[in-house]
């Protein structure tokens, strides 16, 4: 598979689970879908329910050795194969190897006359035949609701659906049934009434012209599950769900230190630099050297042979490389060596949750030891600060669990009290470095000081930040800058 297979956590309950193989979903459900039971996946058109079903079958067939049958009421075998081929799934090959079988059930709307009693044995026999042919363990019915347009007698249909779901369970098949979302109910035809064990709802919302997909586990009998909405992403690798990683603060605090990339800045932090796995915030007005500081940090990590992932929301990677060359930083060689990965995204290209999902997926794929997000300001602009904070909480939490050292830059505006602008995020950060411009005696200069750094005796003095062709250096302690020692971070005080 194109991405790392998530390792499902062992479920505490005895309920057996069937892993979906979908990144994040198995974490959220504590191991997968209930084994031998029917799961209802509901949502509006285009929310990704069919894809979820297909991924469940394809991963089952490839990764878990469980063949699967897809009974599709909407698309023909050919169409379906074409749809998922963009994800790298070769349904024809899987069909040839008897690992996956698609049966297209065509429902002729209003073209069937009805007279007298009947049942849906035809459907049962087809499904049973398909299951038997490939010894299937997984079944997807997508979307069984189409039957409502072909079968006029809904009383018969309902009792037959209930019989169908019971039959699936009797056969010990793990099944996904999809359903179109209704206006007042989860599904238009009330399929949730027949599914007792697990119901997953998918949603695709557009807020301020930016769309976000979300997944929620409405019900999961016998398992404790998060009731939150989890953002998810559909891209060239299929679905990936972003779990809100740890609900409790249990990540281990590391004691190793890593260099900031500037020897003099390390000196200000007990001569050792940042804690590994900590989160660092660099704030400053425009042109104060935030990106340069981030680049120094990145270079130092690459020089140690560590993998870096650099998310840029403002400049293209080539622009960053060029700009950094002008301050004596050759980052290109690390890109070529494969130690430095850039990911450039427009802040407005997707919603915050979408960005979180992309970041999450890349980190899971590449397993970097250092992550830079430059800058978070641009993510803040398209939406309210509450969303940003909740997204950052999740991101910082995720990074800490993975013991990844992270550096975030944040642009502050002249005249804006920085305590307020950064208030939303600063409390999440272990270290806060402030950069600013000043013009004492008419000579402009950049200044740096460490506003806070949890767990260490750091210098509280401001120093001049010298950016030249030779790189970044810190000058002597600036005695004429009283503010540096008076600004107190409320969260730092609270932490003590």
């Amino acid at each position, binding site marked *: 598979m194109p991405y790392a297979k998530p390792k499902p956590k062992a479920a505490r309950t005895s309920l057996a689970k069937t892993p979906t193989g979908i990144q994040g979903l198995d974490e959220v459900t504590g191991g997968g879908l209930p084994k031998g039971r029917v799961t209802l996946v509901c949502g509006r058109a285009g929310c990704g329910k069919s894809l979820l079903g297909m991924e469940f079958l394809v991963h089952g067939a490839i990764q878990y050795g469980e063949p699967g049958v897809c009974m599709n009421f909407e698309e023909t075998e050919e169409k379906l194969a074409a749809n998922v081929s963009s994800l790298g799934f070769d349904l024809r090959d899987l069909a040839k190897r008897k690992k996956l079988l698609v049966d297209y059930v065509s429902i002729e709307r209003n073209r069937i006359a009805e007279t007298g009693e009947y049942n849906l*044995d035809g459907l049962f026999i087809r499904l049973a035949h398909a299951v038997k042919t490939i010894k299937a363990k997984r079944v997807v019915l997508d979307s069984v609701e189409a039957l409502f347009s072909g079968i006029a007698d809904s009383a018969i249909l309902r009792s037959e659906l209930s019989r169908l779901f019971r039959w699936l369970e009797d056969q010990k098949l793990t099944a996904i049934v999809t359903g179109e979302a209704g206006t007042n109910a989860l599904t238009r035809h009330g399929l949730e009434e027949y599914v007792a064990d697990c119901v997953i709802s998918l949603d695709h919302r557009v807020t301020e012209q930016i769309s976000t997909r979300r997944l929620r586990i409405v019900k999961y009998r016998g398992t404790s599950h998060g009731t939150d909405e989890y953002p998810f992403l559909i891209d060239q690798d299929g679905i990936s769900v972003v779990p809100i990683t740890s609900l409790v603060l249990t990540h281990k605090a590391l004691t190793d230190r890593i260099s900031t990339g500037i020897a003099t800045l390390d000196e200000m932090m007990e001569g050792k630099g940042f804690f590994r796995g900590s989160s660092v915030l660099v704030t400053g007005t425009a042109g104060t050297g935030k990106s340069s500081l981030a680049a120094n940090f990145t270079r130092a990590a690459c020089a140690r042979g560590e993998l870096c992932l650099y998310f840029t929301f403002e400049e293209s990677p080539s622009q960053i490389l060029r700009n950094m060359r002008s301050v004596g930083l050759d980052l290109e060689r690390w890109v070529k060596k494969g130690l430095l990965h850039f990911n450039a995204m427009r802040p407005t290209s997707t919603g915050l949750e979408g960005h979180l999902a992309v970041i999450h997926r890349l980190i899971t794929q590449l397993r970097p030891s250092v992550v830079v997000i430059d800058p978070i300001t641009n993510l803040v602009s398209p939406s309210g600060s509450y969303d940003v904070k909740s997204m950052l909480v999740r991101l910082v939490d995720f990074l800490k669990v993975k013991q990844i050292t992270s550096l975030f830059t944040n642009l502050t505006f002249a005249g804006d009290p920085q305590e307020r602008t950064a208030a939303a995020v600063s409390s999440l950060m272990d270290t806060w470095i402030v950069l600013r411009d000043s013009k004492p005696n008419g000579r402009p200069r950049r200044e740096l000081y460490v506003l806070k750094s949890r767990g260490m005796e750091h210098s509280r003095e401001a120093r001049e930040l010298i950016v030249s062709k030779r790189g970044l250096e810190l000058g002597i302690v600036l005695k004429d800058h009283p503010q540096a020692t008076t600004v107190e971070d409320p969260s730092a005080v609270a932490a003590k």
Partner: protein
Amino acid sequence: MKKSSAEKSPAKKSPAKKAPAKTGGSDFYRLRLYIAGQTPNSIIAIANLKKICEDKLKGKYRLEVVDLLEKPQLAKGDQIIAIPTLVRRLPPPVKKIIGNLSKTESVIVGLDLQPVR
């Protein structure tokens, strides 16, 4: 009727009617009834259908009964969901009627049977 398909050729030529069966002609009916085992509905459907055919299509039809329990792979070709399902394969267009065919009038309408002159 343990066999998968039991074929009923036009039995006796109808003496009263103008022409004998025109096999493949525009008024020749090829019908296929899908059942799943000898369930009450299957038995009723077969009886109903035979009666209608004999009354309305004597000498002009061929009826095939397919038991899907024995030949499940045949369900896909005619897109069978409900049991019993009667498929009019000829004359075109293909028509389907589901149910035990207990309402003779709707079967006649559903199959588009021309009244015997």
